[in-house]
């Protein structure tokens, strides 16, 4: 005998006129609007984290790139002493830049996963559920932040081995975590916007490459802004990565290497995340067309 669903409604439609009252057992907005938004964002995060738990291998493969930058590029350029970095050694200077780069690379492929989910129909299913689209986007951003935290652990480990003077002040560590999360939010929202624009894997791969390298080079990640020609300085000051690097550089090291105050960096990143997520929420339906 097939099991029956206990609470199955049976042909009760005809008795109802006009609008429908919620079924018992299906609650409508259990929290306030903001509460619902936060709850749905966390569910979207949980979805990503559960996937990561089933297959954490990408965390290891992604750790290779920052290792190469610090161990090879950093060592060689540190020896050259070609780049004036003030009180910091070159290796110390670039440590924050490499962590920011890992965050950028970790987050920029969020868009690719969304295109993949669109092709599979997962995205359709989520978008048909009563879930604000910007909550889906923010959830992905938070998940990218959590993945990026694993990169922070790798970068801290490598920096320690290489003798970089790190700050272990708990407040500084907390600030780093915050900056990592918000920075990941910026770039995953940005990549979702790109995904909504290009809509296919092939084009995203191209644009993704086109986007990450200029973002990285037009920033203070591996050289100070003062070395740049004027036009590049303007670009760097518009680049959110610059503020992420500066925030990290101010907190990660035993010597404060930042240019701007931490609250300013964090505010810029937070505003960028909010604006980009909102834009992404508006564009999201384009993906399922």
């Amino acid at each position, binding site marked *: 005998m097939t099991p029956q*669903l206990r609470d199955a409604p049976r*042909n009760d*439609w005809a008795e109802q006129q006009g609008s429908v009252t919620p079924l018992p*057992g*299906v609650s409508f907005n259990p929290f306030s609007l903001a509460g619902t938004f936060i*709850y749905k964002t966390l569910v979207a995060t949980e*979805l990503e984290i559960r996937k990561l738990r089933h297959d954490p291998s990408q965390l290891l493969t992604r750790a290779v790139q920052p290792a190469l930058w610090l161990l090879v590029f950093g060592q060689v350029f540190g020896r050259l002493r070609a780049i004036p970095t003030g009180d910091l050694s070159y290796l110390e200077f670039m440590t924050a830049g490499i962590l920011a780069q890992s965050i950028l690379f970790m987050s920029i492929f969020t868009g690719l996963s969304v295109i993949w989910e669109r092709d*599979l129909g997962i995205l359709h299913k989520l978008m048909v559920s009563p879930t604000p689209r910007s909550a889906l986007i923010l959830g992905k951003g938070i998940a990218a932040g959590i993945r990026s935290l694993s990169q922070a652990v790798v970068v801290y480990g490598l920096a320690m081995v290489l003798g970089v003077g790190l700050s272990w002040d708990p407040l500084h560590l907390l600030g780093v975590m915050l900056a990592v999360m918000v920075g990941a939010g910026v770039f995953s929202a940005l990549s979702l916007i790109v995904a909504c624009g290009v809509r296919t894997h092939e084009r995203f791969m191209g644009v993704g490459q086109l986007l990450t390298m200029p973002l990285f080079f037009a920033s203070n990640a591996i050289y100070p802004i003062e070395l740049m020609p004027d036009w590049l300085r303007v670009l760097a000051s518009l680049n959110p990565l610059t503020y992420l690097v500066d925030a990290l550089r101010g907190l990660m090291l035993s010597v404060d290497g930042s240019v701007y105050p931490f609250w300013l960096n964090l505010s810029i990143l937070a505003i960028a995340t909010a604006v980009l997520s909102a834009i992404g929420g508006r564009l999201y339906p384009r993906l399922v067309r």
Partner: protein
Amino acid sequence: MSILTTQQLTRRFGPFTAVDQLALSVEAGEIFGLLGPNGAGKSTTIKVLTTLLTPTSGRATIGGYDVQRQPTMVQRLIGYVPQALSADSTLSGFENMLLLSKFYDLPRAQRRTRVEEILCYVGLESVSDRLVRTYSGGMIRRLEIAQALLHQPRVLFLDEPTVGLDPVARKAMWELILQLRQERGATIFLTTHFMDEADVLCDRIAIMHQGRVVAQNTPQGLKAGINRPNATLDDVFIHYTGNDLREGISGSETQGGNYRDTSATRRTAQRLG
């Protein structure tokens, strides 16, 4: 009483009209089939009805709620199984269900029992902890139906529910669909390319061609209506949509939508096979 109605429903993509002045009316408790060649506008229609696309003009209501103006209310009334395989293969069956129950605001206290109950209903309780990657095509489809049932929807949208399934899994899916209607009084709105499937399952059928409904009746009525002895639903389909190759070409001006539909179908079939 109609649970789903559309009036002059139109959706354009640039100069192309995918759905043209569509008028449908689906009764509560019936299985309604939407048939038509590729590019006829079936997918666009389903996307508008499930709130994924907004109509260009006209309106559609489900349970009295307007899909454009009250999307959240509509979303709570409908279940949707997209044509592509929408279960997440990197999660277990149970996790797929649990997460969706959270997206649908099922109260915490009821989640687990509800999820287990439905998994049992579709016969997946013994494999619910396995990753969906290891499921057969028929099992994935049943999991997706289970997901769509979590919040007790009044209307279930099934977009080509048996594409890519082997004959045994297809028959099992038919039985599940008929059982859903019989035991739950569910209204089911489905699209399909298989005429035998439409014949077995559907109480009423609408045939779409180039964005318009060209015929709408019971399967028997459609077959009787074309003045041919022993007509099959295939004959009906060809009668209304034309078997001419040129028609097929003119039907594909969907801005690549047709190509995408076709490649999506192939991908689904591949993953299932």
